[in-house]
């Protein structure tokens, strides 16, 4: 491990030295995300799916749509659940087993960013109030790790949902059973396209979309999700250092500007 630690140390020093001159280790501008490539429909058996590459981070996402019972007290809306998992082949340090706090935070932040934006109008997913609703289950699997899983999983989720074909279900009130109407599909009820933008803070420099090298030496982290109207719909700060109030405002502006560009890519990928 010693030699790898020395290389890590050298890399960290390099990153810090470059940032002082406003440069990044991979040549990007401070507010420039990595190249984003999206393929949808990669899992034909799933109702929606996408493979997303954000730099060298890769995520495969699949959507399953199934009838379900609504949550208690939420009988007037469908179910929408977004998960994330780092597959053990994505990273030498990943281990099979129950998710740690990092992965739980990842899944919850991705889920919340999309949910709080109201992207999918869950009220249109009710088959029978309080009895039966449509559930949309979005599972993200990270297959290659190069930092910033928050945005990669968020984009994969959004693209999968945009590309999703919603089967038609029929509720039979005589016996409470639900059946699928073969061959009938519709687009999901989309209201907006949320875009997550994650920024790292190294020293006092804010960088957009940190790669794995930057991720491992950053002091703080903030993920801001914006909707199509340019409003902010979710924020999550992480990392062992704080942000000044001014930096928080700066980050919100970056997230709106960068979000708008990425929203165009997502729209195109989703075919809408």
């Amino acid at each position: 491990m010693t030699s790898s630690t020395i290389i890590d140390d050298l890399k960290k020093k390099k990153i810090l030295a470059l940032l002082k001159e406003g440069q990044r280790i991979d040549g990007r501008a401070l507010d420039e995300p990595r190249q984003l490539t999206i393929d949808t429909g990669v899992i034909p058996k799933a109702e929606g799916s996408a493979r997303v590459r954000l730099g060298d981070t890769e995520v495969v996402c699949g959507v399953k749509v199934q009838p379900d019972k609504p949550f208690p007290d939420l009988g007037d809306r469908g179910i929408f659940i977004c998960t994330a998992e780092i597959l053990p082949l994505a990273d030498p340090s990943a281990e099979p087993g129950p998710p740690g706090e990092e992965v739980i935070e990842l899944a919850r932040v991705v889920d919340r960013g999309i949910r709080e934006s109201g992207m999918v109008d869950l009220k249109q997913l009710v088959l029978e109030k309080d009895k039966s609703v449509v559930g949309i289950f979005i599972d993200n699997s990270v297959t290659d790790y190069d930092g910033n899983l928050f945005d990669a999983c968020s984009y994969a989720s959004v693209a999968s949902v945009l590309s999703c074909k919603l089967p038609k279900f029929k509720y039979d009130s005589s016996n409470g059973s639900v059946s699928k109407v073969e061959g009938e599909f519709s687009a999901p009820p989309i209201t907006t396209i949320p875009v997550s933008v994650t920024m790292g803070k190294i020293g006092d420099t804010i960088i957009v979309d940190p790669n794995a090298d930057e991720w491992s030496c950053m002091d703080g982290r903030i993920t801001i999700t914006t909707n199509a109207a340019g409003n902010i719909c979710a924020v999550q700060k992480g990392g062992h250092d704080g942000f000044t109030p001014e930096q928080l405002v700066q980050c919100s502006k970056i997230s709106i500007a960068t979000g708008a560009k990425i929203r165009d890519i997502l729209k195109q990928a989703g075919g809408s």
Partner: protein
Amino acid sequence: MGVKKTDIVLLDENGIRCDGRKINEPRRIMIKAGVLKNANGSAYIEFGENKILAGVFGPRDVHPKHLANTDRGILRCRYHMQPFSVGERKNPAPSRREIEISKVIKEALEPALMLENFPRTVVDVFIEILQADGGSRCAALDAAAVALADAGIPMRDMVSACAAGKVADTIVLDINNEEDQEGQADMPVAYMPNLGKVTLIQLDGVLTPQEYEKCVNTALEGCKLVYEVQKKALQEKFFGDDAK
């Protein structure tokens, strides 16, 4: 009787909120330091209807040892809800929500602690929600920071937390349970008041860029109010009633 939840008036024409508070008025906050005998430091907070106990152990040896860090002490944090703390009995096993909150609280406290002084050790912060209300993660943080100070852990600054949010299209301080359920946005914030750094910020709900900025600033005003209560609690613990 017959009044449905959604009929609650969150903000009336006089700018008065559903629990009688003004827009910039926090709920009642009471903190007591040093309430436990076994813990190295502890605090009890009542923040609105929140009732929360925090206990700190450490710096102490790390078990299992391979988790120890040779450069600095590590901080562990557990935010845990009692089964009876909420309306419907809660399963005592930690939920994914509790695990996430534990993590953000840990990261909100870490910048304030001089853990570099205690390599190979761990500081454990245990937070027990006895009764939950809106804003429990901020109240938990406030108690935990006082418990850390009570335990004598060297700190760069206090950490003071308070939420702001959007209710009836208005930015208000310190969201309560009803406002959290029925309101438009909730933004918990933790702040190191002397270093001027935000160590926790989350947001659920939609804000315009202007509202976002106002919401942050409103929450920071709340953090400063909390800070005074935290200081008072520690003074009372260490200097007795004379400090009042």
